């Protein structure tokens, strides 16, 4: 039989020297050159673990040690072995407890009297692989949990039936002012102004009835301090902890809307100015053009010339007034977007100065 060439590093925590020699022999029966570390007590095991750390790949643990045993022992060893599987070795008398050890975090258990080289080796390999899988899974879960909890946009999950918050992220806590604990006692009704509830429930019924997955809704939300904000909520259907739920990403667009309104208002004024410019200005201008044609083309008497020149002067003045008026109106628009005592326009200009902030 060919021996496993991998130099496994194994910690055997066993106080009975006879049992240890047996285990050592069994391991050498299948592995060419293992590094077998031996601890006879819990304290010794702890020292070895501190010294070797993550070099150790597997731990075999006897249940009865001189300085610790039972539940306590398992819990402690499992806690210290973050990346290693802990395989419990036990005698007949502890058999029932061995099963319990699995719930305490042990990876596997072996009855010493039933154990042989093959089962020991198999247990080693199997549990190492299993531990690796478990760790990858945990990492993945942590990653996805972080995506939700650390997302810079407020996010939450609510139960479609009861409307209760099932989970909220840090950004939601910060933005709405409620702690996660407070949220867990609330429903999504509680972050809306009372008068919008009817419409909200109508929308939820519609979504459920038509099995809608992805939806985008703009509505008014209410923070803990009473401030009302305009929110663009992107939601999706999700099954969360076995319950039909919806996940929501809340985009506060209050400022954006104010800004758009200000721009539209400004555009309206600019359109007015353009209209005024074309229509009102042209009247005296047309007059001037007509009067100049008269002087050029027609036989004009001296008195008439005087009248025409007077008309020209009046028309020119009229145009001047109109142009001044246009300039004033344009300045009014500039004035509105400068720093003034109007807090709304201050927001508008501050945004304009900040430049574009990336949208979620």
């Amino acid at each position: 039989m060919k021996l496993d060439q991998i130099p496994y590093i194994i910690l055997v925590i066993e106080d009975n020297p006879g049992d240890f020699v047996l285990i050592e022999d069994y391991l050498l029966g299948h592995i060419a050159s293992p590094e077998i570390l031996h601890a006879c007590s819990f304290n010794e095991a702890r020292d070895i673990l501190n010294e070797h750390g993550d070099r150790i790949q597997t731990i075999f643990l006897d249940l009865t040690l001189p300085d610790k045993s039972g539940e306590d022992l398992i819990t402690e060893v499992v806690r210290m072995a973050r990346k290693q599987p802990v395989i419990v070795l036990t005698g007949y008398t502890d058999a029932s407890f061995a099963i319990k050890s699995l719930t305490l975090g042990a990876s596997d258990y072996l009855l010493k009297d039933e154990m042989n080289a093959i089962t020991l080796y198999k247990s080693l390999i199997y549990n190492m692989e299993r531990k690796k899988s478990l760790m990858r899974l945990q990492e993945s879960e942590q990653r996805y949990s972080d995506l939700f909890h650390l997302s810079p946009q407020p996010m939450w999950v609510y139960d479609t039936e009861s409307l209760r918050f099932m989970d909220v992220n840090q950004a939601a806590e910060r933005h709405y002012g409620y702690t996660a604990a407070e949220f867990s006692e609330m429903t999504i009704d509680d972050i809306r102004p009372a008068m919008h509830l009817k419409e909200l429930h109508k929308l939820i019924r519609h979504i459920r009835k038509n099995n809608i997955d992805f939806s985008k809704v703009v509505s008014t939300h209410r923070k803990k301090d009473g401030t009302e904000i305009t929110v663009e909520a992107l939601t999706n259907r999700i099954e969360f902890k076995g319950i039909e739920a919806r996940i929501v990403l809340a985009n506060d667009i209050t400022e954006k809307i104010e800004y758009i309104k200000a721009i539209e208002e400004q555009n309206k004024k600019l359109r007015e100015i353009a209209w005024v410019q074309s229509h009102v200005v042209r009247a005296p201008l047309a007059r001037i053009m007509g009067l100049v044609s008269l002087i050029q083309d027609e036989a004009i008497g001296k008195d008439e010339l005087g009248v025409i020149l007077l008309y020209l002067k009046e028309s020119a003045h009229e145009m001047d007034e109109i142009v001044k008026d246009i300039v004033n109106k344009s300045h009014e628009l500039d004035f509105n977007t400068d720093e003034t005592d109007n807090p709304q326009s201050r927001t508008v200009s501050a945004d304009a100065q900040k430049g574009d902030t990336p949208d979620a």
Partner: protein
Amino acid sequence: MPEKGLKTMIVDDDHMFIFIAKKMLESAEFVKDPLTYANGKTALEYLEQNPDDAEHFVIFLDINMPVFSGWDFLDRVCEMPLKDRISVFMVTSSVNVSDKRRAATYPVMKAFLEKPVGKEKYASLKEMEELRRFF
């Protein structure tokens, strides 16, 4: 029995334009003494009281007048039996596409003129089908 000939009216609240138009019309040999009105109401009154003063009436009408606009004038003219003997030329200092479209809905409206209306323009109107026979 209506009198022979053409009567020309200028309806405009801008007295300077009326001054210019009179001179241009004379120079174009269109008319020597056009009737002038500063508002549409008095012009309407004239038409209502003197429908037989001429065979045909030519009216240069300003669109933007206060109180009684060129549109109000047109609406009233279209209700008169006299309307078949009237040619209206709408005059404006600034052409608006929607104004042009609206003007086209009035059959009495014969042309849309942009201020300043020059001598040549007035002269060209004499060639129009409805007016040719008077020149």
